[in-house]
């Protein structure tokens, strides 16, 4: 098997299966009443946690690729990004369908009144067009550059996601702080890389006299 075949037939399906892990875990807990006394809350938290984690993993792909020089990593970025959306969607659906039971009036009141829900919904809304335009066809249709600009919205979604988590907590911010630091590192790395690139370019051009 060539390296390309190995990647396509073994590694990719393996990563895909791994990404389904949190869903399988939730299903197992639900079936064995391991979700505890308030299973709806537990499910919402579980999917929300994993939505944020996958978003951070997706954001880590590019820095990891450039640091390690493993160019194949880029091949997993779309899949991981879509899994992030998948878990965020489950998080959203559990809130709408299980927690509020499609009580749109109550949901709308929540969005209008409660900052953490407003922000969470905004993050979700930002991710929808990204998920929808994740295909090759859409990259072509939009043109690489415009597509890229659109998909930078993921940075904003990440920031909003972390704020959403922070605002929800009553006390004890340790886990949220970990996400915030990771996100800051991932976004900070991009700023740094950009600055370095620009500086390198600047060094190449002679200064005006």
């Amino acid at each position, binding site marked *: 098997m060539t390296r390309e075949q190995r990647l396509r037939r073994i590694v990719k399906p393996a990563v895909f299966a791994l990404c389904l892990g949190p869903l399988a875990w939730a299903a197992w807990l639900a079936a064995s009443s391991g979700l505890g006394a308030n299973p709806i809350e537990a499910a919402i938290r579980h999917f929300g946690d994993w939505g944020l984690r996958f978003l951070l993993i997706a954001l880590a792909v590019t820095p990891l690729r450039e640091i390690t020089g493993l160019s194949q990593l880029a091949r997993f970025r779309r899949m991981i990004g879509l899994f992030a959306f998948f878990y965020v969607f489950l998080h959203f659906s559990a809130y709408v369908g299980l*927690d509020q039971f499609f009580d749109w009036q109550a949901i709308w009141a929540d969005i209008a009144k409660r900052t953490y829900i407003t922000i969470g919904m905004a993050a979700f809304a930002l991710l929808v067009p990204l998920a929808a335009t994740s295909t090759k066809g859409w990259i072509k249709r939009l043109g690489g550059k415009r597509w890229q600009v659109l998909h930078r919205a993921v940075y904003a979604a990440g920031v909003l996601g972390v704020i959403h988590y922070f605002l929800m907590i009553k006390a004890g911010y340790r886990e949220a702080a970990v996400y915030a630091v990771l996100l800051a590192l991932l976004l900070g790395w991009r700023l740094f890389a950009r600055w370095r690139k620009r500086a390198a370019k600047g060094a190449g051009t002679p200064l005006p006299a």
Partner: protein
Amino acid sequence: MLIRFARASDVKSSEITPKAVFEERRRFLKTAAVAGAGLVAGHFLPAPAEAALQGITKGRFSTDEEPTSQMSITSYNNFYEFGGDKTDPARNSKNFKPKPWTVAVGGHCEKPGTYAYEDVIKGLPLEERIYRLRCVEAWSMVIPWVGVPLGDVLKKYGPTGQAKYVAFETVVRPEEMPGQKTPLLPWPYVEGLRMDEAMHPLAILAVGLYGEELLPQNGAPLRLMVPWKYGFKSIKSIVKITFTETEPPTTWNKQGPVEYGFYANVNPTVDHPRWSQAKERRIGEFLRRDTLMFNGYADQVAGLYAGMDLRKFY
């Protein structure tokens, strides 16, 4: 994170003895013990200390709503002294020693001092009070508490005319309460009531639950239960009672004054900034139900707040 793998040491639900079987076994042992003791000593010996509480009478004000399962009540708890997750208290309270226990009484009263737990409740009949409990996070339970009227306890210490409020404190034992090793909240946890609220017959000091002694995760050995207020008012594992002239600085009120008022009365028309208070999910139910004013105890307690702007004094 909320979801964890069960530890090997955790009790599986299949290993828990059904209450009826457990009680039957207990009754048999007791009968046998009494019979045996009777043979040896020729007279009745007091039964050894055990978890089941004796001589419980049915209290006034109990709701006839279906109580939440004992499993849920003892496994889904907000008790930050044992950790921030609701599953932490049941898991992290194994080393907590609720007995022996003393309560320091002080402030504006005639009989300040340090009293043994047994003396605090001595002479008062243990009553079963089935109360609704409403958490500020918009979930609720129905809990069969066993306890004594708070007012009767406070009267023992002769609060003076200067006693306008009563403050309570939770024990600080970081070695037994791992949550206290982190600054989740400023320890010790402090709560308080206005004197007339504390003297109201609905307010109790709970010592038991489902006919048995309180477990650490539920606030053993002695906790407040004020059913018309959000759960966080009902302070757990009390070691200190102080009669004060001014409103005591309460923990959640200090933590977030905009979110948690001193009164913390259940009020569907005054929203917490992050949780609508109009509805609640009863643990074990799927759909949310409407939250009732003063948690359904308005007939008894609304008079305490006559003339007060409940939007201001939330």
